């Protein structure tokens, strides 16, 4: 066997663990009456996000997320949807990143980010039990107990406690990103239960709606397990005018930074104008979840090919 084949052979345990995770995820959604869907991988108009770069594919782009198509299905009356498949982000490569990775997204109509949180807790507990036959696992020397009550920490409190400032009162984008990786994530690494970091500053809302009784924050949370960012959830923004403004603002920021601004997804906006029901949704990095359950230090350890 050449070295490439030997490397593949040596990954067998990790790839079997990966297959078990995928099976457990599909079992979970099947048992809860979510319909699995597949939406286009090549898009004309990826979601406009300041810091997410789409890989060009001819005249189109590879998807960075299936989000906009999933929302069109919601607008057409589908109520519980999930999708698991490849997504692509240009120039993201590191121990926790690969330009091609597997994303799990699910959406629920008549729901918000609290409902999605309950789904997520149940999903992670189910997958851990199904794959490991346990309620806990050890990742890189840290024990994570999925059955313990999960910590819920607001972004404001996390930053006040570990970074000494309030990003909701006065948002500073550079300082926010730096402190998140240098102060908040290391502190979250010490938690033995999964952590929900919730209620992001309005300026970091992305596609989340603002909290009706506290519009300084967005109904968005991120799941951290052992300090690894695993998922990002929203009460989805359904208001077309506000969505258009946010995309336009991102497009301007991208152009100012010398980046490609993506075309407007007219079908998505037509769906929003028609009416997106109140809904919650989430994107979860499957490779990172497999890393946790395989006790693997890097994403490349749980992916067969990382060209």
């Amino acid at each position, binding site marked *: 066997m050449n070295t490439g084949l030997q490397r593949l052979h040596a990954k067998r345990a990790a790839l079997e663990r990966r297959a078990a995770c995928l099976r457990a995820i599909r079992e979970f959604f099947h048992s809860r009456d979510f319909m699995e869907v597949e939406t286009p991988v090549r898009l004309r108009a990826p979601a406009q*996000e*300041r*810091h*997410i770069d789409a890989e060009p594919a001819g005249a189109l782009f590879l998807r960075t997320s299936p989000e906009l198509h999933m929302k069109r299905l919601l607008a057409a009356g589908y109520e519980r949807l999930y999708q698991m498949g490849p997504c692509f982000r240009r*120039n*993201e*490569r*590191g*121990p*926790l*990143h690969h330009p091609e990775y597997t994303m799990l997204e699910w959406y629920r109509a008549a729901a918000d980010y609290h409902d999605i949180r309950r789904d997520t807790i149940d999903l992670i507990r189910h997958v851990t039990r199904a794959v490991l036959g346990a309620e806990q696992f050890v990742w890189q020397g840290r024990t994570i107990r999925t059955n313990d009550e999960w910590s819920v920490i607001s972004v404001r409190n996390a930053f006040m406690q570990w970074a000494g400032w309030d990003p909701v009162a006065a948002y500073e*984008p*550079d300082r*926010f*990103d*730096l402190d*998140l*990786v*240098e102060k908040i*994530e290391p502190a979250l690494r010490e938690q033995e239960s999964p952590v929900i970091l919730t209620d992001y500053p309005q300026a*970091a809302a*992305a596609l989340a709606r603002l909290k009706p009784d506290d519009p300084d924050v967005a109904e968005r949370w*991120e799941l951290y397990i052992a300090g690894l*960012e695993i998922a*990002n959830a929203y009460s989805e923004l359904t208001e077309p005018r506000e969505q258009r403004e946010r995309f336009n603002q991102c497009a301007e920021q991208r152009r100012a*930074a010398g980046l490609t601004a993506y075309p407007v997804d007219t079908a998505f906006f037509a769906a929003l104008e028609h009416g997106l029901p109140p809904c919650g949704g989430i994107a979860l990095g499957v490779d990172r979840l497999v890393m946790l359950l395989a006790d693997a230090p890097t994403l490349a350890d749980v992916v067969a090919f990382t060209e």
Partner: protein
Amino acid sequence: MYTASDLRKGLKIEMDGAPCVITDFQFMKPGKGQALYRCKIKNLITGGTVDKTFRAVDKIDKPNLEERDLIYSYQDGEHYVFMDSSTYDQVLIDAEVLGEQRHFLAEDMEVQILFHNNRPIEVTLPFFVEKTIEETEPGARGDTATNVMKPARIENGYEIQVPLFINQGDRVRIDTRTGKYADRVSKGF
């Protein structure tokens, strides 16, 4: 200038006027936030290490570095004299820059010297050099274990640790990167 996307392990950069090398590198990207490049950076002159996180928009200075192959000639007090074999220029290097490696130099040895703004900052010897053992306790015959060591002096009086079976007059190879005994080349008389 480098941009953050050029950063990688082993890249030499300039920070606060000093040449540095990136010894550890990690790509990070929090949530919907910007890409961040977390680096451990070693100062090539002082050897000190600092952590620094760069943003995608940051520009990083390129150091003015030049690597030259020079031939060692002789020692002149605190200086070591090297020669450029194409220009016949003489270059003086301080003992301090050579560090422990100065003990392994030999006449006509070709070495690589790294210059920062024309100042020599790092000398790389061939990985292995041969030296004769001038003095050591007599070897224990038949004891070929390499895990028990004893002191021995090489030609210039420098002391290294060698296995018990090594005798005076033996020729040994030394790893210049670690300064440690590697193996025996030939037995003495």
